[in-house]
């Protein structure tokens, strides 16, 4: 049973069956950013502490960072995004995922927003 959490900076984190967590940005975020033209992803095996910047994205309008809300190690990246950043616009919560991370401390997920709280945040 997968469970999705959200941050107040519009990332989503989905707990997968194997215990890893997939990270991307929300539909709301891609709509605000506009067409993405560049995505710089971390490397597999790289470790990050909570709050560290793990990826950089650039749209036609602005640059943004993906700061991790959890501690962990990258176990997979979506290498398609290097040539096709538009996947993030087309399917931000599907084919436009950024990377998967193995959590150092799974309990950190509990501190994030659930679907209802996130929808409230963005005023839906």
């Amino acid at each position, binding site marked *: 049973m997968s469970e999705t959490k959200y941050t107040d900076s519009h990332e989503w984190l989905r707990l997968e069956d194997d215990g890893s967590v997939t990270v991307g940005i929300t539909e709301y975020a891609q709509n605000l950013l*506009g*067409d993405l*033209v*560049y995505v*710089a992803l971390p490397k597999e095996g790289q470790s990050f502490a909570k709050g560290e910047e793990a990826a*950089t994205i*650039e749209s*036609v*309008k602005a*640059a943004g960072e993906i700061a991790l809300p959890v501690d962990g190690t990258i176990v997979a990246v979506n290498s398609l995004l*290097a040539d096709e950043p*538009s996947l993030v*616009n087309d399917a931000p919560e599907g084919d436009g995922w950024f990377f998967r991370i193995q959590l150092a401390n799974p309990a950190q997920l509990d501190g994030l927003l659930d679907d209802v709280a996130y929808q409230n945040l963005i005023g839906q």
Partner: protein
Amino acid sequence: MNAPLNRTPLYDLHIKLGAKMVPFAGYEMPVQYPLGVLKEHQHTRAQAGLFDVSHMGQVKLIGKGAAAALETLVPVDIQDLPVGMQRYALFTADDGGILDDLMVSNFGNDELYVVVNAACKEQDIAHMRRHLSAHCEVVELTDRALLALQGPAAATVLARLAPAAAELTFMQNAQLEIDGIACYVSRSGYTGEDGYEISVPAAQAASLAERLLAEPEVEAIGLGARDSLRLEAGLCLYGHDIDTGTTPIEGSLLWAISKNRRPGGERAGGYPGADVVARQIADGVAKKRIGFIVKDKVPVREGAEITDADGTVIGKVSSGGFGPSFGGPVGMGYVASAHAAVGTALYAIVRGKPVVIEVAKTPFVPQRYYRG
């Protein structure tokens, strides 16, 4: 408190079309429509895009002395500008800095038609009134909107409504009826594509825009794509690529200074800052505007510092972003002249890290103006 924003006569149409509106030069303007910046850009290069540029200033200079008088403010040949032709010009300051860039058309009957940038229009009109009023009337056309129809299908589309528009070549203009509406039409634009700029009475602007948008080739295009289109075309954006701190020579705009206004020409000088410009033509300049491409895929944006191989800062990016038709990031900036040769490898500092860039020729995509 900010002053309330102005709206163009197309405001209601933008809202109806689902535009995202942003403040720009004192106006609420559409930055993009639901199509999005990338697709709007590509559509303009593939077919035709319609832009609302009604925020720009439209001015008539009326009187026998208008051309000679305007020449005292710009380094451009206005007196010999043929009737029915348009020319790019620059208002210069006493130190040679650029106050604005503009388009000047000769309408005949001692009338010049001038289009200036939105952000500069108040100061430009004051500047013209101060210096030209003794020689001609300076009339701001506040009751007209301005549309741009740009792209390879623009000529086919406009010819359906105004067959005579097809006969114009690049930088020619004419007063034509489009769908029964009296317009000033010039074959020019800010995208590098063939196309037109259409001055239309404000009251009829929305209906003309809707008429053009009803043609299957035409989509509404916002300011976001307007910026990426002009950047790929190597065209300067005033306030960014040129401003009061850059002269026409530093801005690599010698081409815009008419031959007969250059040193040795029959009407050499005679505009503000002519001495500075003449000296720079003879002796060269310390910094120069260049175009650059980016070796990686990372967009390099305005304000980024440019360094040489040793990490010494030698310039700054004035405009930059992703070029959708070029297929990668492109930009313009100012660098020390020793580093301005095409092919020179330099670095731009993006988020603290050096990114390899290379000085490149502009435009970044071929211009497709219709020259007959």
